[in-house]
């Protein structure tokens, strides 16, 4: 509770301008029409729930601007106020697609400004408790993400963007809930079969070849420049060839993933195995360690940051490789297949649902690798902080 007692710090110029501007806009916009349709015109007085949210926003902004409010209170108040305003705006516009008036957009701007101020105060908070600190560093990007979704929803509904171009996130969410078994089958086909098998084989073979290459300096000098070059090449182009060789089902996707993940792993492992210093080699030598002992006890642990770097790069590459390979031909299942066919059938909400699944799978995969990295390379300066 130490942090609650923190006195209000002087505001930055941006915060001053933003809060004054938002306050002015919020007050002035009460004269404008919120809903401005052909047959319907609604003002703030006609929409009690929005009027309540706007009133709260004005009070909060005024308090923030003119009174000395503690940081934590400012954060919580502005955050809650901005979400209340945003959700009442969404609730108001949903039945009146495309009829948003000038007042509506003014309140959207006010809500966004409040969220920005909230994030600004949050970023300035420096809680001593590590737990709270982690919470804050998680809350800030989360706020940004949620606001991205809110703006998407508001803009698409407010401007009545055609569904075939861009569906609002709420519809994507409904589609996601409505067709879990289709999405699960796609996920199984693309991720559990193509991506994971290809990733495992590609990374493992890259690692093993790297250890072999490392024994022969001649090969190391010859392969490393080539490996570096290949890492920059558009390897994804082999996808049509692999589909021809291995057929439409998942083995061809796994083959593309193997080729895409092999070279980053090879190059990074070879570089990592060279990371140990002369003096460390000498120490192992004084212990009379043989090649295998030096490798297992010193050089491989030293190479782990590099290996995990490759594993992280590959986690993204693998998913991309498998999905793009499906553009060249699949059985009637798979994320890439779903995306390319539903685009053709103008079911854009299904496309976004597939993309959401892919994004979630990709982020979780990456996060998992990063988590394992923290455990394995606990000694590295970047992990110790």
């Amino acid at each position, binding site marked *: 509770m130490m942090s609650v007692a923190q006195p209000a710090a002087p505001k930055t110029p941006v915060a001053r301008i933003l809060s004054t501007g938002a306050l002015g806009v919020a007050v002035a916009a009460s004269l404008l029409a919120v809903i401005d349709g052909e047959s319907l015109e609604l003002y703030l007085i006609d929409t009690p729930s929005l009027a309540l949210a706007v009133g709260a926003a004005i009070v909060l902004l005024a308090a923030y601007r003119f009174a000395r409010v503690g940081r934590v209170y400012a954060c919580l108040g502005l955050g809650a106020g901005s979400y209340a305003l945003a959700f009442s705006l969404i609730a108001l516009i949903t039945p009146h697609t495309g009829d948003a008036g000038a007042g509506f957009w003014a309140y959207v701007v006010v809500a966004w400004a409040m969220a920005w101020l909230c994030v600004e105060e949050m970023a300035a908070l420096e809680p001593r408790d590590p737990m709270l600190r982690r919470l804050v560093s998680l809350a800030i990007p989360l706020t940004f993400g949620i606001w991205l979704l809110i703006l998407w929803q508001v803009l698409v509904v407010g401007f009545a963007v055609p569904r075939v*171009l861009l569906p609002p996130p709420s519809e994507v969410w409904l589609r996601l809930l409505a067709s879990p078994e289709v999405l699960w089958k796609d996920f199984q086909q693309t991720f559990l079969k193509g991506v994971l098998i290809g990733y495992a084989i590609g990374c493992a073979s890259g690692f093993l070849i790297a250890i072999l290459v490392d024994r022969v300096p001649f090969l190391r000098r010859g392969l490393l420049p*080539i490996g570096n070059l290949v890492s920059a090449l558009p390897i994804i182009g082999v996808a*049509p060839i692999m589909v021809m060789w291995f057929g439409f089902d998942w083995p061809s996707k796994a083959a593309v993933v193997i080729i895409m993940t092999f070279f980053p792993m090879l190059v990074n492992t070879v570089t990592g195995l060279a990371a140990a210093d002369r003096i460390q080699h000498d120490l192992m*030598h004084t212990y009379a360690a043989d090649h295998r002992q030096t490798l297992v006890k010193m050089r491989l642990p030293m190479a782990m940051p590099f290996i995990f770097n490759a594993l992280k790069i590959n986690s993204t590459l693998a998913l*991309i490789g498998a999905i793009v390979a499906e*553009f060249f031909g699949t059985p009637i299942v798979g994320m*890439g297949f779903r995306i390319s066919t539903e685009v053709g059938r103008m079911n*854009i909400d299904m496309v976004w649902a597939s993309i959401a699944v892919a994004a979630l799978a990709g982020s979780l995969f990456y996060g998992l690798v990063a988590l394992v990295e923290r455990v394995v390379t606990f000694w590295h300066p970047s992990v110790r902080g």
Partner: protein
Amino acid sequence: MTSETLSPPVRSPFAGLMSGTAGPVLVVVAALLAVWYLAAVMLNTPFQRDIYKRGGLEDVSLVQLMTDTLAQDRPVLPSPHQVAVEIWETTAEKKITSKRSLVYHSSITLSSTLLGFLMGTTLGILLAIGIVHSRVLDKSLMPWVIASQTIPILAIAPMIIVVLNAIGVSGLLPKALISTYLSFFPVTVGMVKGLRSPEIIQLDLMKTYSASASQTLWKLRLPSAAPYLFASMKVGVAASLVGAIVGELPTGAVAGLGARLLAGSYYGQTVQIWSALIVAAILAAGLVSLIGLGERIVLKRMGMAR
């Protein structure tokens, strides 16, 4: 280790040639070519034997079999010289404006690559400047910049193109947007690191000069970020080429290297696929080494060359 260095040096005639990188690289490339030829013979043999059987030809000599497998029309794996001949025929011997000229297709892919790369680099630099100067952006945007790359954005490529087509934007821009998305990330991450690379003592010096934030940016931060910029541009340009090629796949584009790949896979023209692939690789290597060249010249003039 030590015992090796202590033993008397054995002077082999190849010692000088093989101790650098050029020799080993050449040997490895030669080995790869040999493997390619071997694989071509082995992969193409079953089909060739089929032809012989249908033609009623008995005991064909091994040499005959090998030459035949390396000269098939639609081989499973074309041999290197077939690909080389195809590339030569479609670049040097065709008019540049011809639909069958690889130069024509490359130029289309290259133009959207470069446009996307330019937009991505600009966006990346601007984002990095914003992130370095605003704590709000640093804390809220940076995690999303990183998360954006764990999302397989290439999956959206078909949709971006179809949607933009529907609202009347077609041609170069949709493909370039995909390249932009792929190339902004390395530039942002590299530039944030680069703009933060000046040491405290240098920033303090700027403060004693009472330099404004923009003066510090132009005179200290941007110059010291130059090496980082070039390193990340190399990654970015390779990524934007991938973006442009993939951007050509889903819409059944009629021109571009990606379209050549797609057409080749529809009609089983393996030689065409491989030649498009090799040309794409040459293009990528060329772009990366061009940026490397720029890097060397700029850093030398700035006195930062290593």
